[in-house]
């Protein structure tokens, strides 16, 4: 056991050192080249290790997935576009698509707003309270998906009227004199989907808070002081000075949460497995792959997901252009 700990620690040290040496060697190699070539080759050497990992672990499987999406469940025969047409024609998938869009519309925005609120407001508390409050918001991130399912089971649990409720929400509702509600099966206005979203929000707010907090702390004092000397009030400072400077981080958080939501599956899988019209694309994909063993259908879903990121990339391209024109 001790050996394992020792090994882990040494690996961290040696691993990081090896990585540094690797880059040093790559750098030296580039410097051996004549000046013009050095500048041309060096960037590629810098991204080479990262790209090697990406190509092996994601690009290669993704390409294989693309190929599989045109084949049958066991990937033994070509079926053309069958997987896609079947998917898009099924009415269940259209509901799934709508639910996923709902998640995409709601969760990223609230994640950013909550994280930003915590980052800015906690910043004004005394260091002790700042640390405490941030730790509390961060706590859920340390809970695994299975644990989160148990936690929220204690909130959403339902028991028939007349029995003591062990779910917090129904305990409150019945204490107020109403009938207990089956939260996760209430399909009106997709309420049950929203209850699942709250779980993700609860789990993800820490992510947004940490990144935005780092950005807020990085806003140079002098720009704030300059604004104050100009007589701007705090609200104006926040919107005209702070927000523009951390906008890049806001977008980063928004896009990563958005993409994370597009493939969300664990919360839905653990709580309802898509029942009562809560299904999302990620959950359907997971079930096609691991319950129905249908490689073709699962692959087609992933390809659709990848296509759906095109608008996000288009936005990124525009951002680059703006950055470059500013630089």
């Amino acid at each position: 056991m001790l050996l394992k700990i020792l090994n882990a620690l040494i690996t961290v040290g040696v691993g990081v050192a090896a990585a540094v040496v690797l880059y040093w060697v790559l750098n030296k190699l580039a410097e051996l080249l004549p000046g013009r070539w050095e500048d041309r080759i060096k960037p590629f050497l810098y991204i080479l290790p990262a790209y090697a990992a990406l190509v092996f672990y994601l690009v290669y499987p993704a390409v294989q997935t693309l190929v599989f999406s045109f084949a049958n469940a066991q990937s033994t025969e070509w079926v053309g576009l069958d997987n896609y047409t079947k998917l898009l024609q099924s009415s269940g998938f259209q509901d799934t698509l709508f639910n996923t869009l709902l998640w995409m519309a709601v969760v990223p925005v609230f994640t950013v707003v909550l994280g930003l609120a915590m980052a800015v407001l906690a910043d004004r508390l005394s260091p002790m309270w700042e640390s405490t409050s941030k730790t509390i918001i961060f706590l859920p991130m340390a809970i695994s998906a299975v644990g989160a399912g148990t936690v929220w089971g204690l909130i959403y649990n339902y028991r028939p009227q007349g029995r003591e409720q062990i779910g917090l929400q129904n305990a409150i509702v019945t204490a107020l004199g109403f009938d207990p509600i089956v939260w996760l099966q209430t399909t009106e206005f997709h309420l049950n989907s929203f209850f699942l979203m709250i779980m993700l929000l609860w789990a993800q707010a820490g992510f947004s808070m940490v990144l935005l907090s780092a950005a807020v702390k990085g806003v140079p004092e002098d720009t704030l002081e300059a604004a104050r000397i100009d007589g701007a009030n705090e609200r104006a400072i926040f919107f005209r000075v702070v927000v523009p400077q951390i906008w890049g981080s806001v977008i980063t958080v928004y896009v990563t949460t958005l993409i994370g939501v597009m493939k969300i599956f664990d919360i839905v899988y653990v709580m309802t497995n898509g029942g009562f019209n809560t299904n999302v694309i990620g959950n359907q994909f997971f079930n096609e792959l691991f319950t129905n063993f249908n490689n073709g259908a699962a692959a087609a879903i992933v390809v659709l997901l990848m296509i759906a990121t095109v608008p996000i990339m288009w936005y990124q391209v525009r951002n680059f252009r703006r950055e470059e024109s500013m630089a």
Partner: protein
Amino acid sequence: MRLTATRRRAAFAATAAALALTTTGCLGSSDDGGGGSAGGSDDGVVDILATTDPLVFDGLKSKIEEMADEAGIKVNVQRVDNINQLILTKIQANDAPDIAVIPQPGVIKQIVDRGKAVEITDDIVPADLLSDMTPGTLEAGQIDGKQYGMMISMNVKSLVFYNKQAWDKAGYKAPESLDDLAALGDQIKSDGGTPWCFGIESGAATGWPVTDWFEDLIMRYGGADGYNSWVTHETPFDSDLVKQAADFMEKNVLADGDVPGGRGSISSVAFGDAEDTMWDDKPGCWMLKQGNFIVSADFIPQDVVDNVDERIGVFGFPPAEAGGENPVLGGGDLATLLQDNADAKAVMKMLANVDIGTTAAPDSSFISPHTGFDTSLYPSDLTRQIADVAYKSDAVLFDGSDAMPGEVGAGTFWKEMTAWISEQEDLDTALKNIDDSWPAS
């Protein structure tokens, strides 16, 4: 044993820590067979991956290790929580264990379809070892007439549990036919009670307890043949047979006053919570139809489990006609041979031994599929009664939803029946939706 090996290695590695780093094999302890993911190829260790209940698993594991030790074979027995999802991934990646113990014939069929299972022929497991198997349990492991799965542990599902003390005081009798059962429900209602404890909420698997109800009723109305033709979808869901079963439920289980909280509450009550009020002196509901696994402190209050023979009564779900064909719904863990090597075959033979369950039986819910098993090893009269329900039946028919394709058996069958129970859909729509989801083969 493992400890000393680790220590010795620690002493060695401490002097050569830097070396140990580069030779990655040393970084994880890969002695005694390493992790369960070690491929079952030619490493001289028979890897067994199972998903049986933790207590049953511990008992089986110690016996398997003991028997293998005597035979001089190294085994590495591991448990995973959900083998159904893991095993096919491993098989597709050529990383399969030597033997997988799988509770779903549907998954075994997927493996056979991909040509990755080894048929359990007579020269691997001699027929006389299996001659005392409960009727139906061998067929459960057959794909297209060939034996691929061999049951080593059995579950019995055609059971109705009740609160023994209250039951005896009220003077109720175990029913002999479905009509008796219906009459008993009416009597309980007229005595001011609620006949059924019924909940089907189960997180990701919500709806599965309904499928057990349907299976039990269909095998009673249609007999073993009708049941099997329904499981293979020769008889569709949208058929008279299935509707007859639904009709029984609507009249006797889903009608007003049949369950606490009414029909609308069934889909939201956790299956493990349904019987919580059954153990009160004045039971909140009187009967629970459930598999034998439910008799555990995980689901039933500790003081009831501690006095199991005084507190819990059980009867077999009755046949359609008194004295008529009496099939029993069951399940079980099927050992499947995935690698063709001598040691693995020898271990398969051990698994067929009637004594494989002797260490598991006293401390767990283990029930042997062998009728020749020493029933005095079971921990309670209740377990003996449950085993008898299966041993004395005409045939144990395997849980149909586990044999159907995943899209149906772990998908629409659960979901559509939940929608029907909670009255979001009418029966015809639900049945048609299930039929539509059956994958074209």
